[in-house]
């Protein structure tokens, strides 16, 4: 019963189309869509209609490897998904609309979407009428290959449920579409937990964190408690991180000791210090240092650019990774530690022989959620053996790397969207 959905979909897809991913519907990952000229609604402005459809496509893109781009210029036969409004007999469609009430739209597998313009479609959050956004997300689900799903909360239920504020694709819909197109995979530029100090209403200082994944010029906030990214992410870096390079960073390091609390971003030969309180980079910090600074100045002996880096609170050292080497930097003494650099395979030995990233890491991420250090490369990660595990199994090496796992099996739905929807 547990695999019912997988069986169901795989069985039917095999009959129709078997792309390279097995039971995939569209065989390409960037799909073009267009609201066709003779199918504009008479109820909303064309801009509103296009905005709502752009958002609807983006919502599916945020939970699947598919990307959608509105294409107003290519010949119609090159458009994968065509949307239009009509009443009664419409747009050469075999199925006639029934007027106001009951059937409000339909869609054809790998094909078009038609909306009944006799219905009272409204923009999101207007509270009355039929939410065009909700209907569009549902019909796009059909075009992508999803059937009706009767589960409570699923956007693929056949009957319309009045719009509660800000609906989102729930876990079941995500798994259903990922069953057809696979999960979201990709390399990250860096991953980090951003720590902030806050004052409660009683004036107590509490320390909290959020987890961020960065990939080139965009980032996701990952909600560990919900096992998914924040609704609406990714967002472009300049929007949320003021002053760091828009194209993204190589590493994020948070030096956190009794006397020091400093966050740094590294990219190329330079680094920036981030002011977590005012949420922007320092142009000049309390010590009078101007940023950006050369890495060679701030961290003598450390080469640049680096692949990634992290701060280890156990020994108060920053570990800079570059190629197959690791440079341990003693923050207190402000110099490289004796014996640095060493080979990554030496400092972080593989627990399972041969199962090691060896060189060119993407990210070294200490997670407060898991209380563990992860080394990420490509679509895989290796977790570093923790002290508790070593107490139980003394034979495990210090900083040993446990066998690799896939990033998308640990952190879910970190999906790209088309660059045009990042604007």
């Amino acid at each position, binding site marked *: 019963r547990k695999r019912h959905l997988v069986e169901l979909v795989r069985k039917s897809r095999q009959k129709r189309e078997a792309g390279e991913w097995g039971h995939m519907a569209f065989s390409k990952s960037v799909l073009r869509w267009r609201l066709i000229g003779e199918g504009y609604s*008479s109820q909303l402005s064309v801009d509103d209609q296009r905005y709502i459809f752009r958002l609807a496509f983006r919502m599916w893109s945020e939970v699947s490897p598919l990307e959608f781009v509105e294409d107003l210029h290519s010949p119609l036969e090159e458009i994968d998904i065509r949307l239009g409004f009509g009443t009664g007999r419409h747009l050469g469609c075999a*199925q006639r609309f029934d*007027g106001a009430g009951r059937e409000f739209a339909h869609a*054809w597998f790998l094909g078009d979407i038609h909306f009944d313009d006799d219905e009272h479609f409204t923009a999101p959050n207007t509270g009355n009428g039929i939410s065009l956004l909700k209907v569009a997300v549902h019909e796009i689900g059909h075009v992508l290959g999803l059937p009706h*799903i*009767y589960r409570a909360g699923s956007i693929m239920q056949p009957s319309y449920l009045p719009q509660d504020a800000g609906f989102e694709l729930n876990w079941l819909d995500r*798994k259903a579409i990922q069953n057809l197109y696979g999960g979201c995979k990709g390399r990250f530029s860096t991953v980090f937990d951003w720590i902030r100090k806050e004052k409660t209403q009683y004036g107590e200082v509490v320390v909290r964190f959020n987890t961020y994944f960065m990939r080139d010029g965009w980032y996701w906030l990952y909600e560990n408690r919900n096992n998914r990214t924040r609704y609406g992410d990714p967002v472009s870096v300049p929007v949320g991180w003021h002053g760091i390079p828009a194209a993204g960073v190589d590493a994020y390091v948070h030096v956190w000791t009794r006397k020091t609390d400093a966050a740094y971003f590294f990219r190329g030969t330079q680094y920036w210090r981030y002011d977590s309180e005012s949420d922007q980079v320092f142009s000049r910090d309390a010590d009078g240092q101007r940023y950006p600074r050369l890495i060679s100045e701030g961290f003598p002996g450390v080469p640049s650019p680096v692949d990634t880096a992290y701060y280890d609170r156990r020994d108060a050292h920053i570990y800079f990774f570059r190629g197959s080497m690791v440079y341990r930097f003693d923050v207190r003494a402000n110099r490289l530690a004796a014996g640095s650099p060493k080979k990554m395979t030496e400092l972080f030995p593989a627990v399972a022989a041969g199962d090691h990233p060896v060189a060119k890491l993407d990210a070294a991420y200490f997670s407060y959620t898991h209380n563990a250090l992860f080394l990420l490369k490509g679509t895989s990660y290796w977790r570093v053996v923790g002290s508790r595990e070593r107490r139980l199994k003394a034979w495990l090496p210090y900083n040993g790397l446990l066998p690799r796992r896939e990033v998308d099996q640990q952190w879910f739905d970190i999906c790209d969207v088309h660059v045009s929807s990042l604007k």
Partner: protein
Amino acid sequence: EKIFHRRDHSDVVPPSSRQATLITDTDTAEQFLFKYGFIKAVKWEEPPAQSTDMLLDADTVLEDTDPFVQEGASLFRSSSGGTSQSPDFIQALREFQQVSGLAVTGLFDDATKVAMNKPRCGVPDKEEDLVETTEASSTAQDLNETSTYNGTTPELYNHTPKPATR
């Protein structure tokens, strides 16, 4: 405000002739069940692309040539001999009630009537090669669970330090 083009707004509210016919009796209920595949799975495929001049004709409402209305009624009548309480009908009704979360009575009761008249998607619930509806167990949700958090710094929650797009 709904866009209107006539001074008296008469084009805002569709004329009564363009109101969907409501499901009021077992006959219309049978057509509903037939249309959405509960009596016989529907072959739901996009029609071949038509020429634009055909598109121009789209405004002409061709009542008597609607394949679904004609075929459904005739097909059904031949199979059930005109009586609306055939086993097929009752079975289809029961299935519709079950997937709609209603009491499975096999009777065309008020709750079923209300459910059938709700605004809904026109894609059939049962397509020819998707014979079964999709049911997924919630236990699979466990797949997503990660180990519980045991560190010292609580996760900042319900706090959006970075602006979200929605």
